């Protein structure tokens, strides 16, 4: 659905690079999570993808259209839900939908059908005649989403769609996104909430200072921890010197941090069988956990960037 090759962008001629040599392929019908700190380049990437800003170098293909030659075609098949609540508080829910639908060229009766469908997907039928400004935070987010769906997009870009909503509305939005994927829509999803990205996305890319650090299927990335597949042993206190020596002699192990030993391996069961006697021989070194891969996307992000998203 989306293919980026060598995508590069800087906002000033000799200024810092916002994106550098981005290569990315996003398959049709997937939910693709884009993670990165503020200023990492997520918004720049989304803005180029949706045709809002130009690029310096590289190729962008969306739905078979080349951005350089067919930018209007790409805009036509793209829906965008910005982080901001991009609608008019003084207008009702229905009036907002009718306005944006009309602005994108929809005419009756198709306009009415799309409005009805948008209201249905976001469960806003009962609020259609209320002014948007008086809706709760969760309902406003739903309206924001409904507007992005008006043009039946094949690609939907969601920028922080669940910011500031209650848990129930958040769950509703995530379920709606999952349903849209089932209907064949491709979704690019950015969020600061790693747990929801982990929950809803099939694939993920971590972008840092304009470069993609890692990209792939969610399960594979979590299993590998972002590097070769490894067994991670965490101790309650730094391992003793005899145990550290024994581990390094038995495996190509690294005692990476004070309390962790990383043992690269393709067969975790076999490695665990060899590891157990060593641990039993050094009972003074108390083991806190043994894991294959990473527990969470947040662990992966921290491992790769050295910071969390709030930094």
């Amino acid at each position, binding site marked *: 659905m989306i293919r980026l090759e060598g995508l590069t962008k800087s906002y000033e001629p000799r200024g810092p690079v916002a994106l550098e040599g981005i290569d990315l392929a996003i398959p049709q019908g997937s939910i693709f999570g884009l993670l990165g700190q503020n200023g990492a380049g997520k918004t720049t990437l989304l803005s180029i993808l949706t045709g809002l800003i130009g690029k310096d170098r590289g190729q962008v293909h969306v739905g078979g259209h080349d951005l350089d030659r067919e930018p209007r075609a790409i805009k036509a098949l793209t829906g965008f839900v910005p982080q901001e609540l*991009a609608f008019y508080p003084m207008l009702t829910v229905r009036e907002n939908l009718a306005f*944006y639908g009309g*602005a994108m060229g929809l005419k009756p009766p198709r306009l009415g059908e799309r409005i009805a469908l948008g209201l249905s997907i976001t469960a806003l039928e009962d609020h259609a005649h209320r002014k948007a400004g008086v809706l709760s935070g969760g309902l406003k987010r739903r309206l924001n989403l409904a507007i992005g769906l008006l043009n039946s997009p094949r690609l939907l870009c969601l920028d922080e769609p669940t910011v500031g909503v209650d848990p129930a509305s958040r769950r509703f939005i995530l379920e709606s996104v999952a349903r849209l994927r089932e209907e064949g829509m491709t979704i690019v999803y950015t969020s600061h909430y790693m747990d929801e990205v982990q929950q809803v996305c099939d694939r993920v890319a971590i972008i840092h200072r304009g470069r993609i650090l890692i990209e792939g299927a969610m399960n594979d990335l979590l299993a590998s921890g972002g590097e070769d597949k490894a067994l991670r042993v965490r101790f309650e206190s730094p391992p003793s010197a005899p145990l550290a020596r024994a581990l390094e002699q038995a495996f190509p192990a690294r005692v990476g941090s004070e309390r962790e030993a990383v043992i690269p391996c393709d067969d975790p069961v076999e490695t665990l069988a060899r590891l157990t006697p060593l641990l039993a021989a050094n009972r003074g070194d108390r083991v806190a956990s043994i894991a294959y891969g990473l527990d969470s996307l947040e662990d992966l992000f921290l491992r790769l960037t050295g910071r969390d998203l709030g930094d």
Partner: protein
Amino acid sequence: MGPFTVLVKKELLVLSRDRLGLAVLFLMPALFILIMSLALQDRFQELNKVTLEVLWVDHDGGAFAKRLEERLAGTPEITLRRDTPAQGAESGEALIARIAREGPAIALVLPGGFEGKLRARLDAVQGVAGSGETGSEKTEDDLATLIYAPTLQASSRAFFLGHLRQAISRLLVRELFSGLAPGAGEGDETLERLLAPGSLRFSERFAFQGTRSGQAMTSVQQSVPAWLVFSMFFVVIPISTAFIVERQQGSLLRLRLMNIHTFQLVAAKVLPYYLVNITQMVLMLLVGVFAVPAIGGDQLVLGGSYGGLWLIGSGTSVAAIGFALLVSTLATTSVQATTAAGAFNLVFGALGGIMVPKVVMPTAMQAWTVVSPMAWAMEGFLDIILRQGAWHEALPEAGALFLFGLACIVLASAVFHRANA
């Protein structure tokens, strides 16, 4: 409906929902017009009709003083006030202090030798006429003392001084004439009529161009166009605020993703606010015609060209909206936009003859008004309302305003497009 029509319809809908904002746009100038028309009424009336209160202090009590008092009291523009005996006995310094403190505008103090000085002057005149002798030194003395309140206008002082000199001259002429023709004594109506200044008539006309009879400028004819122009330019604040909020909340971003050109986004603001401006104009003119006279002010005379009013009103509106859009695209926050817009409006208003009428500005200052689009609008309205010209009389000002507005709109589109490229 095409996207442009949809954008315009949305603007109208959003505007119609903002009742408080609309009320401010319509009520604020109406209140200004009512207040300023009444506040400036006396100032403008002074240009046409002087009404002066004068304190009469007579220490002479002679026949001449009596006749002068009667003449001044019979002048419609002068209200003569007499002191109580106690007040009449106060010193000159005390009188000055009283005038400075509580008025009236002028005190006329006739000294004890007033009659004698006039008689001496008559004798001198008769001497010159009869034997060629020169006048005595006594004719050079002050006849009376005039004390002015500090707030007295120069025009009022000039009027009263001229009127007093004329009244005394008439007394002297009457006296001389009665000496030459003893039959024509006091109370001779024919003689009085012939010597009355009002019997010297002139053809007077203000330079109006229309067929209707013109009127001198009144406060309402200054205030209505002035505050109308000011309020039309006031749309800069709601336009810039709405535009920046739309930009910040991502609505404009969303619209740009829908293949809508930036020029369309900017231009779609013009028609709704043009309707607001024209409605403002009609309402303010109605206030001038009906509301101001209803509360005791002068009535606005519209002139004969409604087409001219529409033309200059439209030019003013396009200029105001264009300027507002330019401010909107240049400013980055609502606070910045409203501050800049307010400041520009005040400067335009001060330079444009809104706060201070252009006619009372010094000549050098009047030349500076050319930099303010509000001054062009003001001149255009005065062409129609005051000078009662035909529609084409306002064409130069309206044309300049249209060009200014269109240039601002094109520039605003370019700035907006560049900022989002």
